[in-house]
Each structure stands twice: as structure tokens, then as C-alpha cells.
């Protein structure tokens, strides 16, 4: 055992190198790669908490879409506190500075704005 200690340590260190490299590059990635988003115009809360919206906005919009298209229920997309894709621009005025920032970075191609005005 003692005979091989040096070799074992060297082998472990060699195997850990790629992981170390990944961790270091992740930690040292330039901050400018994080998309800058235009802050919302109104100082109010969104329809869902921020973290929920970050991960679930697409599912949330789809559920609203199905409510409207399939069931004809429009109570959530009309009125003063309207939600839905037509109402996002009430706070997030520019699509180029809000939706597109992340979608372009993560190579997500959207079909929304071919039809919906934003």
C-alpha cells in the first residue's frame, strides 16, 4: 500500500482535474454573460412570485391560453388586473429587453410574437 500511495494520489488528482476545471470556469465566467433585463415599469408584484415566473412562465401562459381558447374563460385575461401575453407589456414594456434577452441566450425559438402584438 505504502508503495503505491504516491501513484494513487497522482491518479486521483489527474481524475479530479476536469471537474476542477469545470468548477473554476463556472465560477470565473464573466458577469456580462448573464442577460440584463429591463426592470419592470410599475413597482408592483408579478402575477406569480419571481422564482415561479422564472421557471414556470411558459406553463402558466399555456394554461391561460387553454382556458381562453378551449373553455372560453377570460376572467383572468381581461379587466384591470389582466394577465396573459397581451398584458405583460404593461410592466415589461420592451420585448427586446425582456423576453428576447433570455430566449436568445438559451436558443429558445418562440412562436408567440408572430401573431401576438407586443
Amino acid at each position: 500500500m505504502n508503495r503505491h500511495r504516491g501513484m494513487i494520489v497522482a491518479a486521483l488528482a489527474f481524475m479530479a482535474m476536469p471537474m476542477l476545471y469545470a468548477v473554476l470556469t463556472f465560477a470565473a465566467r464573466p458577469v456580462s454573460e448573464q442577460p440584463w433585463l429591463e426592470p419592470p415599469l410599475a413597482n408592483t408584484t408579478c402575477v406569480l412570485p419571481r422564482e415561479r415566473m422564472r421557471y414556470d412562465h411558459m406553463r402558466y401562459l399555456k394554461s391561460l391560453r387553454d382556458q381562453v381558447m378551449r373553455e372560453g374563460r377570460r376572467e383572468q385575461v381581461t379587466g384591470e388586473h389582466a394577465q396573459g401575453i397581451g398584458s405583460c407589456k404593461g410592466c415589461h414594456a420592451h420585448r427586446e429587453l425582456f423576453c428576447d434577452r433570455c430566449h436568445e441566450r438559451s436558443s429558445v425559438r418562440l412562436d408567440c410574437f408572430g401573431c401576438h402584438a407586443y
Partner: protein
Amino acid sequence: MHRRRFLKASAVLSAGAAGAYALPLLTSFKSSAETTRAPSTKLRWGMVIDLTRCPDNCTACVDACKKENNVNTSGDKLRDIHRIRKVTLESTLSAAPARKSVPLLCNHCDNPPCAVACPIKATTKREDGIVIVDPHRCMGCRYCMIACPYNARHFNFRENPEQPNPAYPKRQHGVAESCNLCAHLLDQGKRPACVDACANVNAQALTVGDLNDPNSEISTLIRNHPVKRLREDLGTEPKVFYIGL
């Protein structure tokens, strides 16, 4: 002896299995027949078109529809979309020559052939009877256009470059489209664009309302006038009624 017992047991088992599979089939047939016959007391949208009040050269409904729904029209007769259009009917009988200007639109059938033909259920009949295309889901196979006996369906051969009404989305290239009785307005308690325009030019030929409500304006019109529907022989049960056709 052993073989005899084995055969007996397997016969009993297979008979039991067949019965277990057949039972839900038989019962489900019965229950589906019962549910389709149940009368609906819910809202059921329909339209009455009074041709005696519809002027020959008026296209207010067509223009209003195009503006409200961002309908793709550029003057190309082969590709233009008409959610509502006006045609002139001429009687070929020499005894009773007649010319009528008739608005044609989706009949919102109770048995919509387009919804049956749609392979992905993009076209559906809503609970209130409106036949609606979900452009998010439509893949542009155009089966509905073949199935519709009224030629009420159109295909977006290109995207509309204009969007006169930003509150309502346009359609992209590759989806089918038809009148949906301005469902977005009806759901908010407003009149469809064509009905509104018709009332604004004081023609009042178009009326939209609840067919299930015996006291609604549309039910009264149907009761008090001889009404016709288009191609009733097809069994599609259209919900657009014509007075004076």
C-alpha cells in the same frame, strides 16, 4: 384425467376473461347514448340573418370583421380570407326571378364536420356552441376545409403584414381560419364586430344571441318568422338562420 381437468379449468378461465373484457364495452355503449341525448340548458350561441333588411351593396359586416380580426386580405382572390363574405344569389326560375345578397359565414354547426375531420382537435366546438380554431394547435393539414360543406374555412397562405387591431392576434402562415362569432367579444358581453357594424349602418340584419333562451331576441325572431338554414339535409345542424332566403 389430469389433462381433462386442465382443459376444463382453462375453458372456464378464458370464458371469464372474455366476459370481463366485454362487460365495460357493453356498458360504455349504453352510457354514451344516454349522455348524447341529454338536453342542454346552457348558453348556445346562434345567429339570425334577416335578408329582407340586408342591402345589396352594403359590406359593413365584411369590412368590420376584417378590421376586428386582422383578417389577411390583400386583394389576391385566390388567397384572401373571408370569415364573412357576401354573395349574390340569382334565381334561375323564369317564373320568379330574384336576386339576393346573402352574407355567408361559418354556420357553427351542432355537428361540425370540420371538428370531426381535425386530426389533432385544433378545431373544437366550445360548450356554448361556437366552433373555434385553436391556431396554436393547428398544423395546417386543411382537412377541415375539405370537410366543411359551406366553404367557410380558409387557409393562411401567408402572414398578414398588417395588424389593424393590436388587441387581437393575427395568424401566422400555415393555419386554418374561420369565423368564431368573435368569441373574444361575446365572452366579454359585447356584440360581434359584424353585428355591431350592421346595427351601426341601421340595417340590423344580423342578430346574435342565445338559442337556448326562449325569451332572447334571436329565439323570438326564429319563432315569428319562417327561417331556413343552409343545407339542412346534411344533418350538420347549423346555427345560422336566414329569414327570407
